[in-house]
């Protein structure tokens, strides 16, 4: 039982506990807060996989930005404080289908192993990612900036109040 193992089990347990809380809690805000634990634990998982830069990005984007934007979405819309449960039959059928999916996938992945190469991904991780992004992946990188601009403008236009249409209707 090495320290790496202990860290992995702790982080995996936190991630799964956050997910289970998301399913079981009834208050909507509590669900989102439970998911922050999952996102931060996944950032820790990335560190055990020697991906420091992805871990930092995970903390910034997911547990920072996306969680806050979802909390804003909850605050801006009126909702029942206590979430009503879906019909019982639907929950059971969905659970059975997902359980079947889980068993099939688990049967496939449980013995998967390619053998370990001695990769040293953690040395100068951020620097190497930067060099790769600006040399080999420069076109997808620039396209991503276009995508972000489109998403920004699109969401502003979608969420903007349509005053002109209302005046036209009058």
């Amino acid at each position, binding site marked *: 039982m090495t320290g790496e193992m202990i860290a992995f089990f702790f982080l995996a347990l936190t991630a799964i506990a956050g997910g289970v809380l998301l399913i079981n809690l009834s208050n909507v805000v509590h669900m989102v807060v439970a998911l922050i634990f*999952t996102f931060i634990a996944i950032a820790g998982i990335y560190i055990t996989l020697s991906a420091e830069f992805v871990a930092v*990005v995970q903390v910034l984007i997911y547990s920072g930005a*996306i969680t806050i934007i979802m909390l804003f*979405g909850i605050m801006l819309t*009126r909702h029942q404080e206590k979430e009503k449960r879906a019909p019982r039959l*639907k929950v059971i059928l969905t659970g059975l289908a997902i359980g079947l999916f889980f068993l099939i996938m688990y049967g496939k992945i449980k013995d998967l192993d*390619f053998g370990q190469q001695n990769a040293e991904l953690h040395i100068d991780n951020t620097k190497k990612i930067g060099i790769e992004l600006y040399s080999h992946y420069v076109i997808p990188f620039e396209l991503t900036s276009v995508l972000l601009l489109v998403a920004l403008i699109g969401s502003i236009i979608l969420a903007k109040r349509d005053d002109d249409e209302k005046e036209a209707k009058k």
Partner: protein
Amino acid sequence: MSSIPLAAYLLLALILFCIGLFGALTKRNAVIVLISIELMLNAVNINLVAFAKYSINPGLTGQIFSLFTITVAAAEAAVGLAILIALYRNRQTVNVDEMDSMKR
């Protein structure tokens, strides 16, 4: 070298994906459905980063792919929330059972 087998990471990602799928299919608040989809995308990212380290040719490609996925997921969350707010303004609801104007 690492003492954790690849299958452990894949199993964790599978469990998180199943939780996200269950939440996306059974929850009735649309914000929770959106955030369950984010959880599923996160599980996929764990797979990408795990295969980047444990594949036959270890390299940074998987990590860079996961960075792109995170960007697209953030854009998706923003647009999804904008659609949700536009819908809320018209229908006064965030309940996915009542969003059926295209079925009638």
